[in-house]
């Protein structure tokens, strides 16, 4: 360039900055509800652009319109300056718009290769298999294409979805919360792939609630609040906290961190040499798990998907019984052979990972979800063993107020709530009964910054009141924000629990990979 005698011309500079994609005044209404209210957004070629917002802010609705899966009520899209009217996702893909969904839109019953093939024009599978292996090597996203997707880990499923997009040679790739279930190492791999991709000229629209990530990856961020654009900023020039506050529209309260050596209560949960064989061909066996948990403390159990945390949860909740009663003691009482209800009667409460279908019944209203775990409480059953609707309605209202659960109607079905709001309700359901022991899986999965902070504060407050709290999570930020002690589950074994002070994400990551050595050895 320095050899070029003429200065760079204005027109070429302009064309280089010509937007690849532009949205002007996009409005999407569902009846009287406005999900997107005059949203403007421009994406430059090769740019890594973040879309930030709380749950229910309208991010997913907006990107589905870009992808052609929804049609806007008003407003226009432009693709390289030309008006764009998408008849559907197939047309978006032809133009070069690819999308990886938050809850992966992979087909579990099909192989990884078949999943990729479905999104592409017809091509012999053998040739496609070669291309998949090539691209997966190029971008450092290893996947065995012949494996059925239901046998893949969460991280691998995401790679399948990404490969599916990459093979379409996208010019704009939309990613919805891509790292929410990845290990730090897996997320790092993903970032390197995305950086390579954008260096090749593909623009990326990145949706995440992990603000540090957005700051590390993206050069521009558009912030949505209640369907409206509230700010467009350079995330590198502002703090994560300021970003979060712009999203929520309020100051975010810090989760009160314990000093590290506050008084501990008595032992509430003791697990001794708990082993459980694998449940089915894709299960993980639990091997000699031992730990104890005192009142007032939060134990964080970190681990990536498929390392045994589902089995660990099932064993602790009583969905699968332990071989011997004494392997699990709750408040000193042998509970290993008790079912979940029996354990709840001892003062335990559980918040499973899967919200619809496990924590709540999707089609049933919230008030009925209360009966799933709390039917034994005084007041829940009226005279003659009838369910008390009055009690349920009152409790529902109380939980919704205290945990700011936003949803339409007095008693909507669980399915109609956004992920974060349902999670706030389900955590609230367990927390307001003031259990002695709360065991929660992935409390912050898919939850925005505001809701995550609210849930974390509530968990901390519960521990401060003397309850023992166990959090199983794949999200290290969450583990570090909450836990007093941290243990790692890996291949069905639980590491020793180390004080959170002095642990780093890198050490936890090494424990996850290396298995069961001490952090000194891992570090």
């Amino acid at each position, binding site marked *: 360039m320095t050899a070029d005698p003429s200065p760079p011309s204005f027109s070429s500079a302009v064309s280089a900055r010509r937007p690849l994609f532009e949205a002007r005044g996009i409005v999407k209404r569902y009846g009287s509800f406005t999900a997107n209210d005059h949203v403007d957004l421009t994406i430059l070629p090769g740019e890594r652009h973040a879309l930030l917002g709380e749950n229910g802010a309208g991010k997913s609705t907006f990107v589905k319109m870009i*992808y052609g*899966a*929804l049609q806007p009520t008003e407003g226009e899209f432009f693709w390289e300056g030309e008006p764009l009217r998408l008849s*559907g996702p197939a047309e978006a893909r032809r133009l070069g718009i690819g999308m990886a969904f938050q809850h992966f839109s*992979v*087909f*579990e*019953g*099909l192989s990884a290769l*078949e999943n990729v093939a479905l999104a592409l024009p017809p091509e012999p599978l053998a040739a496609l298999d070669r291309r998949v292996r090539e691209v997966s090597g190029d971008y450092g996203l290893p996947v065995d294409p012949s494996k059925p997707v239901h046998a893949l880990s969460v991280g691998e499923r995401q790679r399948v979805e990404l490969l599916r997009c990459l093979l379409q040679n996208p010019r704009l790739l939309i990613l919805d919360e891509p790292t929410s279930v990845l290990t730090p190492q897996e997320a790092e791999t993903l970032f390197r792939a995305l950086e390579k991709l954008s260096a090749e000229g593909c623009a990326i629209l990145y949706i995440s609630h992990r603000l540090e990530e957005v700051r590390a990856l993206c050069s521009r961020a558009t912030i949505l609040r209640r369907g409206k654009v509230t700010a467009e900023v350079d995330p590198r020039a502002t703090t994560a906290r300021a970003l979060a506050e712009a999203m929520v529209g309020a100051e975010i309260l810090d989760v009160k961190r314990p000093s590290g050596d506050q008084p501990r209560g008595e032992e509430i949960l003791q697990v001794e040499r708990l082993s459980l064989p694998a449940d089915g061909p894709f299960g993980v066996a639990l091997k000699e798990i031992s730990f104890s948990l005192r009142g007032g403390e939060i134990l964080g159990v970190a681990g990536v998907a498929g390392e045994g945390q589902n089995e660990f949860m099932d064993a602790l909740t009583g969905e699968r019984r332990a071989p011997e009663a004494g392997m699990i003691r709750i408040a000193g009482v042998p509970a290993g052979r008790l079912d979940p209800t029996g354990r709840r009667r001892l003062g335990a409460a559980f918040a499973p990972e899967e919200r619809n279908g496990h924590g709540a019944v999707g089609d049933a209203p919230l008030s009925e979800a209360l009966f799933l775990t709390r039917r034994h409480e005084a007041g829940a059953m009226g005279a003659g063993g009838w369910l008390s609707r009055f009690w349920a309605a009152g409790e529902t209202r109380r939980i919704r107020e205290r945990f700011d659960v936003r949803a339409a109607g007095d008693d909507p079905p669980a399915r109609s709530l956004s992920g974060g709001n349902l999670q706030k309700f389900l955590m609230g359901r367990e927390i307001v009964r003031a259990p002695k022991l709360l065991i929660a899986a992935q409390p912050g999965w898919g939850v925005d910054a505001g809701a995550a902070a609210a849930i974390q504060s509530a968990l901390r407050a519960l521990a401060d009141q003397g309850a023992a709290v166990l959090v199983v999570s794949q999200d290290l930020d969450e583990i570090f924000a909450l836990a007093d002690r941290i243990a790692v589950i890996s291949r069905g074994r639980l590491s020793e629990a180390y004080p959170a002070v002095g642990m780093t994400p890198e050490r936890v990551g090494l424990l996850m990979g290396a298995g069961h050595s001490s952090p000194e050895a891992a570090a």
Partner: protein
Amino acid sequence: MEAFVAAMIVAATPLLFAALGELVAERSGVLNLGVEGMMLVGAVCAFIVAKSTGSTAAGALAGAGAGLAMAALFALVALGFSANQAAAGLALTIFGGGLSGLLGRDYVGVPLPKPGPLFPASWAEAIPYGKAIFGHDAMVYLALASAVGIWWFLARARGGLKLRAAGDNAESGHALGLPVLRIRFLAVLFGGAMAGLGGAYLSLAYTPMWGEGMTAGRGWIALALVVFAGWRVGWVAAGAVLFAAVTQLQFYAQGWGWRAPSQFWAAAPYLATILALALLAGRRTAGSAPAALGRIFRPSS
């Protein structure tokens, strides 16, 4: 023994038609419990057309057409109006039973000539078990060919991949731009045509006559076969043959000196098939149900 094998193949044919059709519909995510009804209407329409035209082929076509029409009715209700699939399917079976009885009122006990074998008789005599291999009418070979064709379609063809995707996750399929409802509609229509053919085989060839309720629960057996076979074509075929073999045992067992009450022999095929397939289904290699089976899908806009 040769006669036994030949009879077994013939008895397996109607089940194979019906079960393969249902398998295709279910792999697309639609549970159609109306198989019995579609078979009955197929049987009676096939019989009427064959009787009045004198052509077995025309009869078989009419049977397939009638099954398809019944399936279209189901698809309209279950897919078009998003009605509960189990209820719509049960209603179809009850409706088919009544409708076939009404249509066939004047044909009960009327005889029809059995269709002749597809291949020349000299082939059947040329090799051992020739009669069991070459001695059947065209519909038997059509059933076998469709088993192979459907296996190929589901495992290898792009259309089959799309169909399985629709049955695995309708929402994701829609998001990828698959015409989920159209795929399901076509799969259900195909299932209906196959059930109609199964019924037609009963009234044209298996017992060339019409009698009310002549399917005798074969539609339900076909449904059970699909489930216990783990939605796999090969296992469905094996299950149909097993069922047919035990059905035929009752005619041959006495000759072989096996003694049991006739009611036992009448019940045996159902027991044996369900037992064998249930044992298979318990194994780890068992196929699993299409994830979206029976779930109502409405594309959002």
